């Protein structure tokens, strides 16, 4: 991470320095968010590859299998959900720790948001690079697809990257927003939030049904490219980011 290159003894206390300090706080122990996810991902991949080789070997070669037999795989998606866990931990425990270190909520949130964006860039870029290797090696020699599995196998790498990046950002800021509801209002806040969410979803479905618009909805998903759909998550991501900020500005670190 570039943030660790900043000199620690700088007496400047401008907002950028303070915000970068929050980023550094998040990775003071880099194991959990910079090392473990790669190790787990590569371990899942190694297990998948071993199974593919075993099956291919038993079948007497990949050519004896159905085309695309090794392309249906969701193993890499765990990392997107993992981002939600990182966000929740950050907004709950790290928030309370940061305030104990005289950090303002403002600086903490902006520093955390920057950290989320940096992690999303790092992981989406890394996985896309691995997807590139996957393609260059004809699916690791067995027509396997792990880093860009079914649905992505014919998309350009730029789209694969955009999809991962947008998905990670969405899960980061959605997780952060839900976590701020918890930090500020505890359990009752979450009850209210999820009841509200359920009403929104059911209400939305009800409106679509009442206006007989399901065909248009299906049409939207069918006609919009994957890259387009990925970009459509941005409004939700930005909204979550703003909501999280507003919630956290008035939150107090209770034990």
């Amino acid at each position, binding site marked *: 991470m570039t943030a660790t290159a900043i000199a620690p*003894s700088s007496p400047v206390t401008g907002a950028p320095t303070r915000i970068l300090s929050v980023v550094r706080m998040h990775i003071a122990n880099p194991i959990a968010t910079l090392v473990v996810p790669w190790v787990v991902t590569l371990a899942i991949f190694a297990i998948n590859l071993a199974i593919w080789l075993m099956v291919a070997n038993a079948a007497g070669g990949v050519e004896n299998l159905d085309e695309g037999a090794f392309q249906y795989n969701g193993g890499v998606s765990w990392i997107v959900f993992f981002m939600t866990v990182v966000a929740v931990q950050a907004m709950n425990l790290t928030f309370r720790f940061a305030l104990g*270190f005289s950090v*303002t909520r403002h600086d903490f949130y902006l520093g955390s948001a920057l950290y989320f964006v940096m992690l999303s860039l790092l992981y989406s870029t890394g996985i896309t690079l691995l997807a590139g290797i996957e393609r260059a090696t004809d699916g690791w020699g067995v027509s396997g697809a792990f880093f860009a599995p079914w649905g992505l196998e014919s998309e350009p790498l730029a789209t694969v990257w955009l999809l991962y990046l947008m998905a990670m950002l969405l899960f980061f800021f959605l997780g952060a927003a839900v976590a701020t509801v918890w930090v500020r209002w505890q359990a009752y806040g979450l009850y209210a939030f999820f009841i509200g969410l359920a009403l929104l979803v059911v209400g939305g479905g009800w409106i679509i049904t009442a206006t007989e618009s399901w065909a248009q909805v299906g049409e939207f998903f069918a006609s919009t490219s994957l890259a387009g759909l990925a970009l459509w998550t941005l409004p939700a991501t930005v909204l979550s980011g703003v909501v999280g900020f507003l919630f956290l500005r008035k939150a107090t670190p209770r034990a």
Partner: protein
Amino acid sequence: MTAIVEAQGLTKRFGRVAAVDDVSFSLDEGGIHGLLGRNGAGKTTLMQLMTGQEFATSGQARIFGEAPVENAQALRRVCFIKESQVYPDDFKGKHVLKSAPWFFDNWDDEFAQRLVKAFDVPLDRRMKKMSRGQRSAIGVIVGLASRAELTFLDEPYAGLDAVARHRFYDLLLEDYVTHPRTVVLSTHLIDEAAGLLQRVLVIDAGRIVIDADADELRATATTFAGRAGDVESFAAGRDVIDRTVMGGLASVTLAGLSDDDLRAAAAAGLEASPVSLQELIVSRTGGFEREEKSA
């Protein structure tokens, strides 16, 4: 002298309970001050209000003459160590100390390392796996080595044994002499810390009940011991804070005495001794039933 900490009509309510109730006081720059009171009296909430961690229901909190809430420039000069401090899940002791200089401009790493040795803290252990005393020691190390202009220490040595506590008092005093600053120390171990304190604030049920110079406070009362008859006749008509009778002997603690009174007591053959801060505070806050308050 300028006030470095100031509260005016400061109130924090949780529902119907006033954890801090119309509190006004000010502390001058420099010195080690005590915020004393029983458990649940409002010490932590008051410190959280002074450091912008809590939002006041009404009234004003000021540090360095400014409101602390979301005030990055003011808060940067503050270090607040509380017993209930939460740490990130994967943080070990060393990560806490590694992060500290990014947030405290006066951080002295050499001093921090010395403190680690003095308190024998396992830096390679996760914070959540540490004992209460070890976690407290980490807090104490950050509180001292940060050398913040304004340091709040809330029950900083919970779980530490008597030896470690005295090491803390010694180190605090020693470092204070070479690096003068303002320290607000909350504790319920009043007698232990009494020798350090310049000014004493006593909070009870959310209200400041004593706000006085420690020496002046001690001088407000004296204990007299002697034959029960002599003690009783001297105490008659005076302001009795505390009274003990054992057989033919008695002791009595009296407030509001003049120099003439002291001479009269000596003439009556009574032995005068100073009152400890703890006795004085207990008699002023613990001697009566308090209304039960739910959290």
